[in-house]
């Protein structure tokens, strides 16, 4: 039976809310306001509190989160979200704050934002950080606008952004949104930047190369300084996509790799929960020569006083109504404070250890398209399984049958039948072994009983969904 929609529980006149009795003299709003402004009909459900509690509790039980089990979505860094951070984000004195309160009344929170900015700068080797962007892609967009403004100020109208073929989709999309043309750079046979091809692509019209390192295959671009030299050689900038920061904290910094600017994903690296698709937070870090372009306002410290500075004539402007996703930022602050330098380095070590362990255990069963050393994640291909008739999608769905979430699939695009696996450091060997065993078992099933894999999932509350129908006949509301 389908789970009813909340509306289906509604009954006219049922009430779940309560409001204080109006304590000012009542007025007839049809008289006080022009009656033509007054709404006549409003279709919202009518429910009691218990209806609402049961409905959403029941919906939650149809969901899988990090607290349900391993969540090895490559590139997404689905690590455990510490409970204390949820409590901290709800401390009245840290949360019940209005964005237009005066700086002098908010020195606690401004100090937090300021310290976090500095922590991120230190972790990344950048000089200044804005916390305003509200997601990773928002950070990318912000950074690309900074690049554009930088060249504009120099009197150059560079149009091209070079993006590797293995890049996240947000990279080209953000570039386009910032008004650039996207040029795709093919990876070499080792899954890495091809220096020659790069040299051939970049010119005085190249604004920047967008890169993540380790790249989306989990492989560290060893020739990163050469890459930087090539891009800088034509006057272009080097942009770092921070999605994979979990692989390098305390080991290497984008700033030291000669990247000029970058974004962070606090909801990945710094363990803020992802909320089923947000909110996230995508701070942007820049080298000194780009600081004047950061979105305004910029948080500064004068003596011991923290304040927002609005007079930033070179700024790209605002990208958010206020200061960004503050309560996400709070959680990241708490996380960094708890871990310290040593803890952050251990995070990276264990993320890399877990990924390499899993890779070692799976590479004989699934095809490993790139043999290079990888860091916090790795990409397998189900090409061998495909030959037998089961696709990566089948394998992903079959994983669900075993109560485990699937890796990122069909990405990066450079790998056929890709399975991109990122276990993260908060998983232990037992959970990893269970996932490994399941993956191996599925491969065996493909040999012995392929139909069970091809028709998966079987054990989920809902079976394979008709996505084609969903797209052809969009049913987007009741």
């Amino acid at each position, binding site marked *: 039976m389908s789970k009813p929609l909340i509306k289906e529980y509604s009954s006219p006149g049922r009430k779940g809310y309560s409001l204080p009795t109006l304590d000012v003299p009542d007025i007839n709003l049809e008289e006080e306001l022009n009656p033509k402004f007054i709404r006549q009909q409003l279709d919202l459900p009518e429910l009691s509190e218990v209806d609402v509690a049961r409905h959403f509790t029941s919906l939650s039980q149809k969901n899988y989160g990090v607290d349900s089990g391993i969540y090895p979505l490559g590139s997404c860094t689905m690590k455990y979200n510490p409970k204390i951070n949820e409590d901290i984000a709800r401390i009245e004195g840290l949360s019940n704050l209005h964005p237009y309160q005066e700086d002098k009344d908010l020195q606690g929170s401004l100090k937090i934002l300021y310290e976090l900015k500095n922590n991120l700068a230190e972790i990344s080797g950048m000089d200044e950080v804005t916390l305003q962007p509200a997601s990773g892609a928002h950070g990318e967009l912000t950074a690309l606008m900074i690049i554009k403004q930088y060249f504009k100020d120099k009197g150059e109208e560079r149009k091209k952004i070079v993006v590797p073929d293995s890049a996240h989709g947000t990279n080209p999309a953000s570039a386009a949104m910032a008004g650039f043309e996207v040029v795709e750079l093919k990876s070499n046979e080792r899954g890495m930047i091809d220096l020659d091809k790069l040299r051939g692509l970049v010119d005085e019209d190249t604004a920047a190369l967008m890169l993540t390192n380790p790249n989306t295959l989990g492989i560290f671009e060893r020739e990163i300084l050469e890459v930087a030299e090539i891009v800088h050689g034509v006057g272009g900038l080097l942009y770092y996509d921070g999605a994979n920061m979990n692989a390098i904290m305390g080991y290497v910094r984008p700033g030291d790799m000669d990247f000029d600017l970058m974004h962070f994903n606090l909801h990945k690296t710094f363990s803020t929960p992802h909320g089923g698709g947000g909110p996230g937070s995508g701070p942007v870090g820049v080298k000194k020569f780009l600081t004047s372009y950061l979105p305004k306002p910029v948080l500064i410290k004068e003596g011991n006083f923290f304040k927002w500075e609005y007079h930033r004539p070179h700024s790209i402007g605002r990208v958010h109504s*206020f200061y960004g996703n503050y309560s996400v930022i709070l959680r990241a602050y708490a996380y960094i404070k708890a871990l310290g330098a040593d803890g952050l380095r251990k995070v990276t070590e264990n993320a890399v250890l877990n990924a390499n362990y899993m890779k070692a255990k799976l590479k004989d069963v699934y095809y490993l398209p790139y043999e290079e050393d990888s860091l916090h994640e790795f990409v397998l291909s189900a090409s061998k399984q495909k030959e037998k008739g089961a696709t990566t999608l089948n394998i992903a769905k079959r994983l669900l049958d075993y109560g485990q979430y699937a890796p990122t699939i069909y990405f990066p695009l450079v790998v056929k039948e890709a399975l991109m696996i990122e276990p993260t450091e908060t998983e232990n060997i037992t959970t990893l072994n269970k996932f490994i065993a399941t993956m191996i078992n599925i491969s065996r099933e493909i040999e012995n009983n392929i139909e069970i894999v091809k028709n998966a999932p079987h054990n989920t509350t809902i079976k394979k969904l008709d996505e084609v129908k969903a797209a052809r006949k969009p049913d987007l509301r009741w």
Partner: protein
Amino acid sequence: MDYIANTPQEKEEMLAAIGVQKIAELFSGIPRKVKLDCPLDIPAGISEMELAHDLKEIAQKNLSLGEVISFLGAGAYDHYIPAIVDHLILRSEFYTAYTPYQAELSQGTLQAVYEYQSMISDLTAMDLANASLLDGGSALGEAVLMASRISRKKKILISQSLHPAYREVARTYGRQQGLEFIQLQLNNTVTDLLELDKTIDQETAAVVIQYPNFFGSIEDMNRIENIISPYKNVLLLMVVNPLALGLLRPPGDFGADIVIGEGQVLGSPLNYGGPYLGFMAVKKRYLRQMPGRVVGATTDESGKRGFVLTMQTREQHIRREKATSNICTNEALNALSAAIYMSIMGRQGLREVAEQCCKKAHYLANRINKIPGFKVVNKSDYFHEFLLETDYSIDKVKKEMSKRGVIAGVDISRFDYKKEGLLVCVTEKRNRGELDKYLTVLEAISGE
């Protein structure tokens, strides 16, 4: 304190399985030249107990709204959030999940978003809504780009009665695509419709109107619709306060093409400006040009209703540089809060909360107008917010209020209006005693 699971012994076991001796070997791919050779300059980690303690201490350096009587609004509103909202979003299956890529294990998030989309559509009286955008300001950024894509034109008419920060964000977004923004002047606290009438032309991509507007005034949307409708392919883009729609006629009634707004009022705490909830509702025919994720209903193999992310060919992970937007992570948990808030308040509750806000604001404003030296600027109808002008110094008013634990309103000198005044907002949380306190302070100043 860290959250790392493996024990030293397990690490050894894993290293052996990998075939290396030390963890350092796993990082051998990083050239020595770039490798960090000293620890990060970040203080040593602390325990959970110290963390909780330290952050409570830092919190004491803030003045929270729990300690004062606040009349702040201007795009971030202090409404009462029923306790059930936080209890439900704290269900870990919701808040620790990712974007619902594997639909079969994500039906909770997916159905909740579908319900959110439905309720936003109902509330705005629009055909459909997306799964959320980053906030009100960036939603406007996305909306002007969308309007330009649809109309294939670049000129955007934006009323000055629109929130200044939204206008800034829209400019930041639009400038990249060469959009031209023309600001419509104010007539008192509403859009100068004569100027709109003069300025609009066939080159116009969209007219952007906020409702209720930045000053709390209710723009005359019927007249605006009448001005726009003769022009073909000029979109009406409305920025709305969804809570006000409990009382006010919805954008769909005025032929709005794209509706965006800040959904914070629907169950998200103030949180110093974020995370908030950008929403977008549009006419059906614009679906394929809409940015953001969308959840659709479909059926599974056994005919059971289920939900999936759909219409993904608009999106960055499929279309890359040709996507309608770069958006990936959105504000799903705030959308969930909004779905819960709208469910618990329901038809009657949303009406009543809107009415209480409006009535209380009018009570305060009507009485302010009787105090010599103080004047409510808004001549036309307003919802729950108004602009207060005074013959006295704004600083003095703020200071006198502050002494009595009152934040008098948003000082509009911080914006680009070149006006003086306080933008005063009254929500259902303010009671009669607090409103009368406000009046008493003004009377005291006036009587001095």
